[in-house]
Each structure stands twice: as structure tokens, then as C-alpha cells.
């Protein structure tokens, strides 16, 4: 036991999460494959893929968030123009450097033109590997979009079976859904704790805890999260006089951990965010009832309870309502828009969301980052000025 573990009961589990976060060689995935002969490790780009389907097929879903700030991108840069965001470059760099050899396939969900086309690039550069585009429907009628989506899931599953994955039985799929629900309930408990006592669980720590789920099966991840939750109850922590903020725009390319910590150091308690949104993409449980076809349950969850985010069509709903609801639910005092440079979905959404916040008198500020941003002084000053302004005057002015 280290000194920090002795003084902080959460330190050990958080250190494990940090180690996974920093491990660009995906050694945890390699170990999983050794322990599960014949099991496939399937990478998935943000935002959302139905992880229970993969687990039910004996696959390990692996969330791929690019190379963060730990990877020199050289070859990846040669495939993209300067005006394209960084996550496809570093993802390609990882692949060309062999770090992604451990994966047996990759899923590219429909989120934006760049991630979609990255799937095409994958097809061309690595034709021997399994690659699938996950075309998430924008029609949310169960009989139209749902039917299409269920077909998509079955198509992807058939492709994986062709690569050696196990065809999922209904019971296995239900069991995987139950495990996923259970994991997500603990994530929700952590989120609730963070909203209640943000000083007890900082956003940067919650981030690491969730991020561990990128390479862990749902059940194992849940065990880690429960361990953390128990440790946090024992943690001695005192409240800070910070401003409570919601962060939006960081659902795909991730900000460096240093940036999240910088916001915290600048006096912001991040009480809600859309970092690595995939694990939080479904609100509430996926139906587990044995009377419901589990494929349909996965589909219904996406159609009926997918969170409002930029890549999802909101129909007749009012733009910004979901964000305002999040602000209210988290009792936040302001919003920080943090989007990756050249992120079309986030940046095109932002003016509409800002307008919605303005109408409600909710203060906000915005910044851009790349996953490898290394200089945070300007961001610290901006966030500091924002939190001071909100605290003093209740506005960003």
C-alpha cells in the first residue's frame, strides 16, 4: 500500500484506472484475449455502439478514443488534411504502429463524416480486418427506424460470426443486457455522488473511472466502480467554494486529462458532462424482461432513450431543452462548451445551444482543444474568469 493509498482510500482503484488510461499498448485487452481463447476484441469509435450485443457474442468491446496526448502522430498525419480533427489521425497512428493489432475488428458508428470516412479508410488500408459501419437510424419510430436498426445489428452480428464470434442466443443477450444495466446503474450512482458532493469525486477522477470501461467487460468494470464508490464513502473530503458547471461538446475526441484538471483548478466543479458519452448514451435501463425480444430491447433503448447529442436528430423537440434540463438537474450555475477543433457536430450545434442558454439567462463560455493540447494556461485563465464572473455576478459578462 502506498502512502497515498493510506491517506486516500480511493487512490488505489483510481491508480489502476489511470494505468489503463495511459496504456496505449492495450495490454489489458491482450490479457483478456489470453484468458478467453477464441474471443474477439472489437474496437469501436465514439459515440455509441450497443456493447451488450458484443459481450453476448463472447467479444470484448473496446472503446477507441485515439491516442490522446501520449502519442506522437506522424504517419496518421499523412492521411489527413490540416483541417480535419485529430482523433482519426491518432487512431490511424495506433493502427499503423501495431497497437491495434490486438483488435479483431472495428466498428465505426454514424456520428460525423470524418468517423464515417475513417471506416472507409480502414476498409482500404486493412482489408483483411473486420470493419463495420453502424448506421444508427435518425427515424425513431419503432416500426421504421427500429426495424432498420435491428436489421443493422443482425447484419453486424452476422459479420462477427463470420470472423469466429459466437452467435448470440436470446438468453445470452439478455444476460449481457442485465450486466450492462447493472454497470450503468453504478455509473449513475457515481454521477449522483458527483452532483451531490463534487469535492468527494472530482470530474477528472470520475472520468478515469468511466474510461476504465473502455477495455473492461461490464461485470469487471462494475466491480471496479463499486470498489471506488465504497472507497469514496470513506474518503475525507472538504467542500470547495467552486462554481458548478456542465461541460458539453466533448463526446468524441477527448480532452486531455490535464484540461479537465485545469478546469477544476480554475474553480469549476464539473457536475455533468458528455465526455466519452457512449456509456451514458442510454437513459435508464435497457429492457431486460424475458417477454421482450432482446434485439428489440436494444433497439428500443436507442430509439426511445438515447440522450440528446449533436449527432442525433431531435425531431420536433426544442434545441437546447435537453441541455437546460441537465443544467437544472445538476443545479449547475453555468455551461462550458469544450469542443475538439474542427468537430463539425459540436461546433455546428453550439450556436443553437448558446442561444437556448441565453434565453434562460444561463451563463456560458466556450473553448476548443485537441486531444494532444498541452498548454492550459489560457484555458485556466478563461475558466477562472468565467467562474469568478458567475460567482460574483451570476453571469459570464
Amino acid at each position, binding site marked *: 500500500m502506498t502512502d497515498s493509498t493510506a491517506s486516500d482510500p480511493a487512490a488505489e482503484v483510481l491508480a489502476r484506472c489511470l494505468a489503463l488510461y495511459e496504456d496505449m499498448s492495450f495490454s489489458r485487452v491482450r490479457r483478456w484475449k489470453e484468458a478467453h481463447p477464441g474471443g474477439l476484441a472489437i474496437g469501436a469509435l465514439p459515440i455509441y455502439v450497443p456493447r451488450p450485443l458484443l459481450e453476448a457474442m463472447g467479444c470484448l468491446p473496446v472503446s477507441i478514443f485515439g491516442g490522446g496526448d501520449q502519442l506522437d502522430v506522424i504517419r496518421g498525419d*499523412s*492521411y*489527413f*488534411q490540416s*483541417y*480535419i480533427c485529430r482523433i*482519426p489521425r491518432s487512431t490511424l497512428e495506433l493502427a499503423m504502429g501495431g497497437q491495434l493489432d490486438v483488435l479483431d475488428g472495428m466498428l465505426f458508428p*454514424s*456520428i*460525423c*463524416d*470524418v468517423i*464515417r*470516412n*475513417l*471506416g*472507409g*479508410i480502414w*476498409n*482500404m*488500408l486493412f482489408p483483411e480486418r473486420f470493419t*463495420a*459501419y453502424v*448506421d444508427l*437510424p*435518425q*427515424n425513431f*419510430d419503432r*416500426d*421504421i*427506424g427500429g*426495424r*432498420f436498426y435491428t*436489421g*443493422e445489428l443482425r*447484419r453486424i452480428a452476422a459479420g462477427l460470426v463470420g470472423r469466429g464470434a459466437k452467435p448470440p442466443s436470446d438468453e445470452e443477450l439478455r444476460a449481457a443486457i442485465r450486466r450492462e444495466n447493472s454497470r450503468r446503474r453504478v455509473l449513475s450512482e457515481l454521477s449522483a455522488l458527483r452532483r451531490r458532493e463534487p469535492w468527494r469525486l472530482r470530474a477528472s477522477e470520475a472520468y478515469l473511472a468511466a474510461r476504465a470501461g473502455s477495455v473492461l467487460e461490464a461485470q469487471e468494470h462494475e466491480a471496479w466502480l463499486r470498489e471506488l464508490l465504497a472507497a469514496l464513502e470513506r474518503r475525507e473530503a472538504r467542500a470547495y467554494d467552486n462554481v458548478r458547471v456542465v461541460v458539453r461538446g466533448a463526446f468524441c475526441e477527448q480532452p486531455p486529462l490535464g484540461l479537465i484538471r485545469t478546469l477544476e483548478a480554475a474553480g469549476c466543479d464539473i457536475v455533468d458532462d458528455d465526455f466519452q458519452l457512449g456509456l451514458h448514451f442510454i437513459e435508464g435501463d435497457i429492457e431486460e424482461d424475458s417477454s421482450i425480444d432482446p434485439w428489440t430491447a436494444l433497439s428500443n433503448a436507442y430509439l426511445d432513450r438515447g440522450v440528446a447529442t*449533436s*449527432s442525433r*436528430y*431531435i*425531431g420536433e423537440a426544442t*434545441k437546447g431543452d435537453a441541455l437546460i434540463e441537465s443544467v437544472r438537474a445538476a443545479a449547475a450555475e453555468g455551461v462550458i462548451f469544450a*469542443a475538439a*477543433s*474542427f*468537430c*463539425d*457536430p459540436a*461546433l*455546428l*450545434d*453550439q*450556436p*443553437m445551444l*448558446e*442561444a437556448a442558454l441565453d434565453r434562460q439567462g444561463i451563463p456560458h463560455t466556450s473553448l*476548443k482543444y485537441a486531444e494532444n493540447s498541452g498548454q492550459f494556461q489560457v484555458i485556466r485563465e478563461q475558466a477562472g474568469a468565467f467562474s469568478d464572473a458567475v460567482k460574483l455576478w451570476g453571469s459570464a459578462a
Partner: protein
Amino acid sequence: MSNPAMTQSAQLEPAEKDQSQIEQKRMIADHFERLARAKAEGKKVVYTFVPGNLTELIGALDMLAVLPEINALQSGMRKKSAGYIAEAEKAGHSEDVCTYVKCDIGMLKSGNIGPTGTKLPEPDLLLLSYTGCFTFMKWFELLREEYKCPVVMLHVPYQTDGEITPEMREYIVRQLKDVVIPAMEQVAGKKLDMRELSRRLQLSHRAEDDLVAVWESARHRPSPIDGYFGGVYYVGPIFSAFRGTEDAVRYYQMLRAEVDERVRRKEGPMTPDGPAGEERFRLVVEGPPNWTSFLDFWRMFSREGATVVASTYTRVGGLYDKGFRHSPDEPLESLADYCLGCYTNLGLPTRTALLEDYIRRYEADGFLINSVKSCNSFSAGQLVMLRELEKRTGVPGGFIESDLVDPRYFGKANIENRLQSYLQMLEARRGRASA
């Protein structure tokens, strides 16, 4: 996403006009006049996008189409886009995002004056044909905020593997039947007459036959057409408000006859400076053109004797030269297949295969990618396509960068230098091959 033009601007007019161009100009003027009178006459106006546009449906319901991408490129040609983009950026739109969107928003905030100088009517419906471009969804969400009018979404699945599956087709047809057409009927105040829709699809079919014949003419030497700069004219009617009309049928008959005549006379295409001189280079081009310096850009090619024998940009509003035609017999199914087949709705391997086919079919000396900052749908992956095409065909590729309608990203000297170096390389290569 980027799209072809209804070419109206005086600055785009070549030195000599073909009869088809005069006819197109009349058609466009008539359309904008109809738009100007729309509100007074109680006509409903539908804003929609070029890829996946449902022009026959709009027409069959007696509504008028406005295509915001075309407004944006027209603004680029008329040197208005810089101001409009500045206006949008001042209002909080990021410098990183699509300049078509910002140009359109800026134009709206500046009074929404269309290319003919009259105010464009506000939309009664935003028909979000969500085909091959994620930005489309954001664009119409932004417009909905401004116009407070209904939006109807048609989600077109992406053709990742170059194959239209029955599930994809069924998904679109169900949306058309259960969502899109009812929403359009409600706005139009009338029921859709399927016979009228079929009649229009038959007209589309005829125009498409003639357009394909025009594309095919580029197999001749010299090519009687320029399939990129000139191609922008050719696709104007069929990619916009005229598909499924007698006007379009007449236009394409006229165009085809003119092209046939040029073939007979062994003439090259028209250029901004008159008839083309000797055909020195035959090129295939991937990516949209720059609109703010369109004529300058074209002249960089035409003055070097470079003719574009095929381009992918002229397939974003419909890919017809692989056999697809709208069908009066299966109206909704053929609308579905049309949407699915638009160029930017095709996966990168399919796009690469299409370019490879063009390079071989039209015996191109080289292929060039104009990578535009604004359009990730086109641009992301083009460097992989470049390498792959060189590997497959042995034909050298060139790469230049510009933007659709933001003049800040059109570096004339830089682009010209790159292009000239590229053409010199092709020339030297040709010399080595014949030595």
C-alpha cells in the same frame, strides 16, 4: 456538403454561349420569378438539399424548391460569400465549420436576397434529405431556429459496401410513405397524385439518358465537354429544381445535340475564353470546385490545354452513368435508390473504384483532387484514395486545397503553381514514355 450549380452569374458566362446555356438561363430566371411570386400566389416553398433531393415529389405536390447549397455557391460566385461568412462568424459560428452553412446563415441575416436580386421566400417546409452529409442535419436545425417552420427528416442509410440492400430500400420507402409524404401533403394542402409523380419520373428518366450520353461523349478525342467546369452547367437543371420537368427534358436534348455536333466537328469544349485549343491533358477530378474564383480556377486548366473528362463532383446530385434511372413503375423505390446512390453517400472503396473506372474509361493522363476545407464528407479520406488510385492505375495524382465559398482559402498563386508543376510532370512523363 458541396453541390453543383444552377449557373447564373454573369461572371461565369463563357465568351460564347451555346443555345443550351441560354435555355438554362431562361429556366433559372423563370424559377426565381416563380419563387418571387410564390407567397402572393399561395405556392408553398420547400427548402431541400441537392443530394437526395425529391424534386419530382415536390413538383407533383405543386410546391417550389429552394436549394440553400446553390444559394451559397451563387453567393460565392457573386463575391458576396466573404461578407456573409463574416456575418455568421460574428454571430458565433465557428471558423472551423462548413462555409456553405455560414454563407447561407449570413445571407439570411442580410435579407435573404437571392441570385436574381429578389428576396427569397421563406420556407413552408424544410425537407431534410439526409444523404451523405452529416452537416445537412445541423444546417436545417439552424434554419429551423430562424424560420420556425416544420422540418421533415428523410434518413438515407450510407452505402458502406457499395450495395443497396432490400433493408435500406425498405427503410427509405417506409419513411417516404409514413413520414415524408404525409408531412409534404399537409403543407401542400393536397394529396399526392401517384400518376403525376410517375409522369415526372418518366421525364426524369429521359433527361438522365441524355445526360449520360453527354458524359460518355468525353471518351472522344478531343473531348467535346469539360466534365468538371463545364459539367457544372450540365448538371444545373437535373440536380436542382428541374428534374422531372419538360424543361429539363428539352434542355438535355438540346445539350446532347450540341455535344454530338462538337463530336462530329472534332471540337473540344467551350472555355471561359472561347473554344478550347489543343487537348494536351485529359484529367479526372475528385472534389468540388472553388466558387469564389471559379473562372480563374477554370482558366488555370483551360490555358494549359487540360480538359476534365470526368469528375465526381458532378455526381453528388445523382449517379446515372452506372445505370440507375428514375422509374415511373416503382416510384418510391426508385427515389430510394436515387438517394442511396448519390456520390457522397458511397463508401470510400466505392468512390475509389468509380474514380478508377473513370480514369480507365476516359483514358485520363492524370487525376487531380481538389480538397475543400469545408466538406469533410468529400475530403476525409481523399489522401488514401490518391495513393490507392496511383497504385491501381499507375496514373499520377495531383492534390490541391481550397474551399467552396470562403475566399480566404483560395490561394491563387499557390494553386496555380501546384497545378502547373503537376501538368509539367505529366508532360515529362509522357516524354519519357515516348522516348
